[in-house]
């Protein structure tokens, strides 16, 4: 396996608050890497820097051998990094198909072909039955799938999934796990932020754990779930002592 993404000493300060503090992270081609941590640990901030939503205060992000930190989001997307949003951001006045076409147009400016591609992707994420419904009329599980469809339509090499399971019931969540696995098997490398531990443990090849902006642990799901530091950060000192 070859290195796809390398994050080094990445730091983000918002005024006096250091949201991400000297984080190092590597992602190999073909992996699913989990990113976990309590609320406010800096996971989404880390995603935002990789996806180009804002530049880091310090550190480097290297994607396929090229430094990408500080580049605008649209350029990073064109390089092959797709993302979904934790708080869904549909184009509410466009249909599911048209939402996806916006993503598909990245690689093919021909609208007719892009629509065909988008149709395939909508089918892949299982939203066929809502193809012509506008974004404003979708429910949460559908919106999460739409987020995924749009990002997939850009045909990314690396996909950043920000809490795609949040708010889903166990059945929908199971379907989503299967879908993420299928996407990975089709050759897309994935970094996934998730609070649903069942999903993270089942999907991830490796996991990084953040706490208050710092990387506190990394390894396979088993290694991480047995790491005392991780247990302490999730359950606090008292609960850790009881264990």
């Amino acid at each position, binding site marked *: 396996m070859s290195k796809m993404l390398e994050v080094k000493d990445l730091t983000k300060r918002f005024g006096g608050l250091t949201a991400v503090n000297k984080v190092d992270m590597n992602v190999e081609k073909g992996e699913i890497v989990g990113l976990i941590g309590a609320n406010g640990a800096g996971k989404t901030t880390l995603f935002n820097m990789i996806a180009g*939503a804002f530049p880091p205060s310090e550190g480097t992000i290297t994607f396929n051998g090229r430094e990408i930190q500080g580049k605008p989001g*649209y350029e990073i*997307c064109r390089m092959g990094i797709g993302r979904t949003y934790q708080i869904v*951001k*549909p*184009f509410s*006045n466009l249909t599911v198909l048209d939402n996806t*076409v*916006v993503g598909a147009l990245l690689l093919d400016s021909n609208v007719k072909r892009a629509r065909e591609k988008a149709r395939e992707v909508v089918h892949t994420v299982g939203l066929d039955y809502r193809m012509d419904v506008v974004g404003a009329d979708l429910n949460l599980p559908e919106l999460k799938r739409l987020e995924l469809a749009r990002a997939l339509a*850009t045909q990314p090499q690396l996909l950043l999934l920000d809490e795609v399971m949040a708010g889903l019931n166990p059945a929908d969540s199971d379907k989503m796990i299967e879908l993420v696995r299928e996407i990975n098997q089709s050759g897309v490398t994935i970094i996934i932020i998730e609070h649903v531990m069942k999903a993270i443990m089942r999907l991830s090849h490796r996991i990084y754990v953040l706490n208050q902006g710092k990387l506190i642990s990394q390894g396979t799901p088993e290694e991480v779930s047995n790491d005392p530091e991780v247990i302490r950060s999730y359950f606090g000192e008292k609960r850790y002592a009881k264990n």
Partner: protein
Amino acid sequence: MKRKTWNPKVVSLGVICLAVLMIPRFITGTLTLQYIINIMIFAYFATCWNIVGGYAGQLALGNGVFVGIGAYVSAVLFNYEGISPFIGMLIGGAICAVLAIFIGSLTFRLNGSYFALATVAMLHIIRLTFMSNKYMFGYKTNGALSLNIKWRGGFQNMQFENNVGYFYLIFALLVVGILISWYIKNSKMGYYLQAISTNPEAANSLGVNVMAMKLKANAISAFMLGVGGTFYSFFLNVIDPSKMLGYDMSVQILLFAIIGGSGTLVGPILAAVLLVPVQDILRGIVGASVQGLAPMVYGLILMIFVYYLPRGLWPSIVTLYENLTFKKKQRMAKDGR
């Protein structure tokens, strides 16, 4: 052999075009023809504004100023250099496009109402610059006074003896405007603009260069408004800076687009067809008897539109049609047909 079927939309558009082309054969009254030309020119302006204001969702309140700039450029080139307005309109349009890119690169950094206000400031700066200088770039533009366009006559000078010539010319302009708007809406750019109008952040993460796309839309819209300004001023044969560069012009244009349904192709045209005559008739009938009553009644009509059809006229018609056909289908299914 497969029979060629015609798209009903194309057929109905063709029929409408033919019907409009026949108008001067039946309507010979100069004033009536003038009303119809007014409708077409404002339908064109609203269509142009719709590209940046509707598709891209940028409330560019002051963009009517490009009509005035286009008008001045081609009039000055015609009066003093003898350049045909058909060339002048391209130069005027190009100047508008460059200006739109320059101004847009500053104002598009602002969001929502701040952006809208910045475009109004731009309008006033340009208007006051024109009105307080008798000469612009060495050419006499008459400052706050009107600038008359010299009479030379002939198609190449966009000057006709009667309104029939202007009718056909401005109809052609409107058709070209609609075709450009239709092309943009159904192209990659159209998808990107609609994405930007609802969620620029998500559009950015899908590879859309939001700023470049907004500038492109602004430049195309400004170019088209500038070209329209040339046609309008040669039709009127005079440029009154307080009207051509005025705030009212801008508001009027965007009102048609918004009331008709901004972001739709048909809406701005439909609103112009309905509201321009209302305005003209009110001015003629009510305005003659009680001063100030015409704009008041017009304002009231606009408020009724905005209150009862907040999404715009055309989207409301489409929804109504869809509901009716849906009910019909349901009834047919119930009857087992």
